[in-house]
């Protein structure tokens, strides 16, 4: 692959404090529109909505359209806006702290997400390792096979497990037929089903970063460690695992963060007995039509996840620096 070698060989001092040709390239064809258009879009559709969520979380529920008061009304001008501000209060948050339901939902969500993340890592690591060690010719195919389920609907993949896990489902049929059990296992509508669902659905998110970290690793490092008298297990913990750590961190964050707020999996596999915050928010919103309270739930959830999200961004930025 001489072409790859050629393209990567061009180390040029591109970072310049002076006006480099690239800055001019950008400035000329865009007039900075390249930055402004996506920036404004994201400000309007991503950042401002959070501000609105925060504002509404301080409002009162009302039987109206929209179902909260005071309604966001810009017609009153600045003084009108100030008057609205005075009506805001922390009632919803007080409510959240007083009702043990919400506290429990947050705690179980974080615990379930954490356990699922560890389980996903345990399942995903051997797969990623096996893929990285596979002959180079079949590695792209294996990679495609990991990505392929990701392209099929998340909802469908979760739904498929209902047929497998339910009391008269395929798993119980198999186990009963083979005589392993005599009573059907109750898995559906328990936390076990949620674990299975999360591990299954998020497995590609774990395997992909692990694989890319492990695949980059030079196998001769292991041979060198063995040559220097390190037994295989110890070589794994002393060489392979530390080198795959960026992949482990990225994979865990990619699983943990969305899993905390997961709705589809607890809703379809967890049933009514299980408690997770994403489902609670959904029910507050669609069931009780309590927009201010669900906003408050979202704000707390966001605060809970802000640290992991920032960790994720730092990891992303660092990975990019390394690719450069």
């Amino acid at each position: 692959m001489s072409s790859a070698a050629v393209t990567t060989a061009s180390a040029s001092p591109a970072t310049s404090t002076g006006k480099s040709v690239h800055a001019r390239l950008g400035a000329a064809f865009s007039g900075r529109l390249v930055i402004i258009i996506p920036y404004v879009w994201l400000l309007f559709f991503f950042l401002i909505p959070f501000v609105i969520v925060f504002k509404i979380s301080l409002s009162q529920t009302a039987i109206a359209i929209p179902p909260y008061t005071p309604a966001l009304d810009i017609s009153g001008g600045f003084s009108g806006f100030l008057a609205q501000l005075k009506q805001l209060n922390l009632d919803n948050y007080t409510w959240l702290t007083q009702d043990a339901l919400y506290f429990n939902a947050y705690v179980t969500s974080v615990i379930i997400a954490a356990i699922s993340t560890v389980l996903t890592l345990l399942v995903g690591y051997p797969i990623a390792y096996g893929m990285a060690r596979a002959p180079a010719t079949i590695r792209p195919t294996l990679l495609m096979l990991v990505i392929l389920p990701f392209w099929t609907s998340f909802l469908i993949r979760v739904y498929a497990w209902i047929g497998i896990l339910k009391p008269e489902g395929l798993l119980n049929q198999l186990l009963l037929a083979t005589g392993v059990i005599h009573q059907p296992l109750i898995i559906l509508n328990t936390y076990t089903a949620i674990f299975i669902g999360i591990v299954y659905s998020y497995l590609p998110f774990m395997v992909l970063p692990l694989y890319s970290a492990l695949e980059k690793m030079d196998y001769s490092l292991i041979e060198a460690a063995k040559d220097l008298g390190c037994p295989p297990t110890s070589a794994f913990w002393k060489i392979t695992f530390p080198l795959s750590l960026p992949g482990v961190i990225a994979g865990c964050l990619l699983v943990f963060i969305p899993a905390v707020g997961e709705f589809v999996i607890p809703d379809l596999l967890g049933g009514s007995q299980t408690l997770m915050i994403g489902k609670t928010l959904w029910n507050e919103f669609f069931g009780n039509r309590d927009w201010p309270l669900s906003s408050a739930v979202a704000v707390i959830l966001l605060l809970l996840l802000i640290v992991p999200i920032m960790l994720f961004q730092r990891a992303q930025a660092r990975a990019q620096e390394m690719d450069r």
Partner: protein
Amino acid sequence: MKSLGSIRRDFTPWNDPNAKPYIQFDNVTKKFGDFTAVNNLSLTIFEREFFALLGASGCGKSTLLRMLAGFEEPTAGRILLDGQDLRGIPPYRRPVNMMFQSYALFPHMTVENNIAFGLKQDGMPKPEIAARVAEMLRLVKLEQFAKRKPHQLSGGQRQRVALARSVAKRPKVLLLDEPLGALDKKLREETQFELMDLQQNLGLTFVVVTHDQEEAMTMADRIAIIDKGEVMQVATPAEVYEAPGSRFVAGFVGNVNMFEGKIARGEAGAASIDAGNGITIRTDNAGTASAGTAVTFAIRPEKIKVSSKKPAEAINAIEGEVYDIAYLGDMTVFHVRLDDGQVVRASTMNAARITEDPLSWNDRAWVSFRPDAGVVLTR
């Protein structure tokens, strides 16, 4: 400094005080943040010259080239091309073209479209473009590869496409960034001569950046040796080798033995150098260095003779012990440890198949050289 003249051809505008400089770097400085890549550097290049910028990686030579091409602007100073200040002129309006180290062939275009790219930008009429492309393909002997894409070519072929593309517009100056760096040794040597022919035939000015001294010596009319963003010496290859201007240049180009000492006695260029430990070196090349000056005497290995007996006629002969012998086929390299501990490197051409005076490890031996064989360096 006395010129040793050009071996290759009678082309020495740098010795003509009336010659008009073609490219001028005037006190150019380039900083990247806190890092000074080029430090107050001045340099003059003449029309039709094959000029090499030689230095280790990170010495600032590529930055010089990129400033000439317009990819970077100098932090201070100015660059003139044919009398015109280049400041503020974007790369796409400069009459210079560059051949990139990575070749930078457009992967989605065929060979002929790569070559035609620059011509199309100039709005050249189609028939003329076709004719010029055909001419370029002939020049680099790639006629039958016109419809191929870059990834369908070997490394050497890609290099020639890059070359054809960069000369297609007949630039005033062709800049070559490590043009042969990606080729294997044999191909590199062939291509060196092809590049020289091309430059002669097209009558262009070439500025080549390289870290390979052999490449620079082979191809260039003059070489500028760059270190830490400064010019150490600008001279013909022969001068750089035989009359290095400083210890750095002497050590950077080829192998050299250096003796530190003081001028003991001197008249009209000839001098004795007291190199300590009873070693006295007589030289004809002391220049204007006066008695008492601390100097370095530098002498190339091939100018030192090694023998088991002290040569009767020798003016400079120092005794030592053979410490190492490397037989390289065409020549043999001796390392002789003098009695003061300094190791001298001497190389002897193996003109005969069997040497009459075989020296072996740990033999006592004499190293000797003529008074005009070395140079005296004060910098």
